[in-house]
């Protein structure tokens, strides 16, 4: 790992900071005018009568106040615990703040209140130590029971290994050949406001995790690089995915439907961009899906000769989905953290080195190893695209078969 530091010269640093400041100020002005406009339109939307707000109970309804009620028995138990402890807190707050408010109103000097300098009462201290203690013990009992149930991962019907990657999820259905990655499909244009945001903005992926309803599904969590955390609020599952370790959790979903969640542990710059979509279906649909999925995977790994234009078209799609978060749609990157590909030594240099960095990643940097994440066709298309887009114009192209032989040469 190379950890030498490139210290820019002091002058350069100074100039750099000025440029950054200028950029920030400029964008601040731009944003300010944009914000004031949206603020007023949004406010005029949200201020109308409360009844209107309550009526808008869509799936995506805004002004959501509380924890989701959940589609599993454990989830409902947790929701119940949450509401119980919440009401206990409200009761305590009403009593404490009530007494305080009473004193604030009645015992003011301006009303002629005289201080009664009573203090130190062991009896009172014992009372207000004991009562909370009893409340806590009462609360701890159901909480303990729920926790024990959550930890019971025995006797599962289906086992799925979930692996966190920077920044996507991999699902392996144990004892089957089904093994795929699930990646965000929201476009960069939507994020940057160049396109209208879709209904499930940032919560949509290419491949859903499909599970059958009314079956005990056990998840085994781990991670490839840093710690991630797999969270689906509707199923009340949140478990850290830790590199080198395996964690367990389970669910039994009762209602068919699509359930969305997100990574909950900071895992780098794409932390907000690795959602989870679970699709719960009937047992028959699940079996049919399994067969389809196995076939689809076989097909995806087969390679065929593609024309330059086909590679470029597929390459742009693949690039925008997998690479643009760092290297940007424009290929300009965000130097110095994420290098530009436009005019870069790698994109214009030796093709084997280019394949190597995409397939194996770069240790000690955010550049992941895409070799196992993408199909040979996708890899070939992306590399071709990178060598010919944004005026790189190398004119060469890579066929999927070359990727396959590269990986074979590496013993993968």
């Amino acid at each position, binding site marked *: *790992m190379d*950890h030498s530091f490139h*210290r*820019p010269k002091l002058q350069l640093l100074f100039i750099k900071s000025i440029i950054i400041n200028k950029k920030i100020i400029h*964008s*601040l002005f731009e*944003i300010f005018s944009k*914000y004031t406009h949206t*603020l007023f339109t949004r406010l005029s939307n949200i201020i109308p009568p409360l009844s209107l707000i309550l009526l808008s109970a869509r799936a*995506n309804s*805004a*002004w*959501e*106040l509380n924890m989701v009620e959940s589609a599993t028995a454990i989830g409902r*138990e947790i929701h119940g615990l*949450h509401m119980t*402890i*919440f009401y206990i807190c409200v009761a*305590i707050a009403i009593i404490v*703040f009530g*007494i*305080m408010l009473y*004193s604030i109103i009645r*015992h*003011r*000097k301006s009303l002629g*209140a005289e201080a009664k300098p*009573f*203090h*130190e009462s062991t009896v*009172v201290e014992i009372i*207000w130590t004991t009562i909370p203690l009893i409340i*806590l013990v009462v609360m701890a009992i159901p*909480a303990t029971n*729920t*926790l024990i149930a959550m930890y019971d991962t025995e006797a599962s019907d289906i086992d799925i290994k979930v692996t966190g990657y920077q920044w996507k999820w991999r699902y392996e259905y144990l004892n089957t050949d089904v093994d795929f990655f699930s990646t965000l499909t929201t476009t960069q244009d*939507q994020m*940057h*406001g160049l396109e209208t*945001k879709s209904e*499930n*903005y940032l919560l949509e992926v290419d491949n859903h995790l499909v599970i059958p309803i009314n079956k005990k599904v056990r998840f085994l969590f781990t991670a490839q690089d*840093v*710690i991630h*955390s797999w969270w689906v*609020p509707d199923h*009340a*599952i*949140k478990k850290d995915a*830790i*590199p080198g*370790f395996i*964690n*367990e959790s389970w669910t039994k979903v009762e209602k068919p439907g699509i359930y969305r969640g997100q*990574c909950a542990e*900071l895992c*780098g*710059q794409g*932390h*907000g961009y690795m959602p989870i979509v679970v699709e719960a279906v009937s047992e028959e649909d699940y079996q049919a899906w399994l067969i389809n999925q196995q076939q689809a995977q076989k097909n995806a790994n087969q390679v065929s000769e593609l024309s330059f234009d086909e590679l470029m078209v597929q390459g742009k799609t693949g690039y925008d989905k997998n690479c643009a978060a760092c290297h940007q749609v424009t290929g300009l990157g965000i130097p110095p953290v994420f290098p530009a590909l436009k005019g870069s030594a790698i994109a214009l240099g030796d093709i084997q080195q280019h394949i190597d960095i995409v397939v194996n990643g770069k240790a000690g940097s955010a550049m992941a190893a895409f070799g196992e994440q993408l199909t040979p066709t996708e890899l070939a298309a992306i590399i071709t695209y990178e060598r010919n887009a944004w005026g790189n114009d190398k004119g060469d192209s890579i066929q999927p078969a070359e990727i396959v032989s590269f990986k074979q040469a590496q013993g993968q």
Partner: protein
Amino acid sequence: MTDHQTATTHEHSAAPATGIKRWLYTTNHKDIGSMYLIFSLVMLLIGGSMALLIRSELFQPGLQLMQPEFFNQMTTLHGIIMVFGAIMPAFVGMANWLIPMMVGAPDMALPRINNWSFWLLPFAFGMVLSTLFMEGGAPNFGWTFYAPLSTTYAPPSVTFFIFSVHIMGISSVMGAVNVIATIMNMRAPGMNYMKMPMFVWTWLITAFLLLAVMPVLAGVVTMMLMDIHFGTSFFDAAGGGDPVMFQHIFWFFGHPEVYIMILPAFGIVSHIIPTFARKPLFGYHSMVIATSSIAVLSFIVWAHHMFTVGMPLVGELFFMYSTMLIAVPTGVEVFNWVATMFRGSMTFETPMLFSIAFVVLFTIGGLSGLMLAIAPADFQYHDTYFVVAHFHYVLVPGALFSIIAGVYFWIPKWTGVMYNEGMGKFHFWLSFVGVNLTFFPMHFIGLAGMPRRIPDYALQFADFNMVASIGAFLFGLSQLIFVYNIIQCIRQRGCPASPQVWEGAEGLEWTVDSPAPYHTFQTPPDLDKLQYSNGHN
């Protein structure tokens, strides 16, 4: 002549040195206290500006102002600067100013160490801020810097980050040693432990917490340094290490750390409420016991920050129960403040307003903390905005409000000038509205499912995020009133303050002139003559 010379060397020269040398070389606890307080104010404004940048980006869905990479740098620096640069030095500044005056001592026990522990800080934070301009950017792994994101996957600036955490740690440990030495050795004759003011008590306990856990933080960052540069694998599973061990060590420091940031606040509020209720603190003894219990318990609750890492069931249960238990002594503190107000003769000057808001809003933060303690429910709360709401409630209208209350309360003693009461009240009401507008909606978006530390969010979280951002700007900008009020006091603009300042104030610091002379209590005060009872007998 020789007699005279002996006298001058034994007594400090009456007047402070002039110019920059006064501040560089000073060993005077009041000068050092002022420097700490001003430093923390500057850090508050820097960290606050970063918070405003974060809230601007989160004003609406989409990426408007910054890239996710820079967003992560901002959340990291905001956390580090607020915890180590704003809140902690502010409390140390107050300790410097007040502890010697409250226990009747002429200065801190270790004046030169005092100077050094302050002057380390500007270098530590200068280094932290300089990482923004480094190749690869500033640290971007959150203020909790979980490995391996902060080791194998960190930007090169992490080494500077580690070094500055070491420097901050040295500064904190020296500050803590100084506080302990002062309190144990330099109390005026007759001031036994159970006559010490609450602020002194809470700081004594805090200082022991600091001594216990800052070396642990130093240890964990050293292990990171070894992993990064010297080929060890403490936190790298590939080499036989354990990333979860990082979290255990970090939170073994981190949980007592949150009490380090709140116990002195308990002390401050325990001075202000009795003063303006014109009544002694209801249960001094039980407050001392409760504070000590919190400190002891704070060592056995750390893994409640890690309920989702996959601990064994028994571990989960242990940490759930111990965490719930800590609510009991915390409750005792709150009940005692309320009982102190009850049947008092209350007035509502700015320090009192901030203290009352402290009690209410800190309690809200405490109650959401109790909810978070319920381990099964925490699987839903963990790493969401509910947690962000919780800890900001205990740290902003908690720790920060107590500091603001303390500044308003003691600034007449420090500068000799009364602050502008009207502006103080205006500052309070804007802050009160702003802070709730910012942090209360975060409870809702957290419960609705928004993870923390994301630069962009799904559309259903948009409305409350916009409210929070508006609140943040209201809160942030209203602090400028505070800054103005402080500057006016320092510039001696305003009515001169009497030595007593507040009608109901008790304690040795109110027996000296306002402003407090450069040297106070060079001969120990006679507690009997002053009828010193600390409000209780």
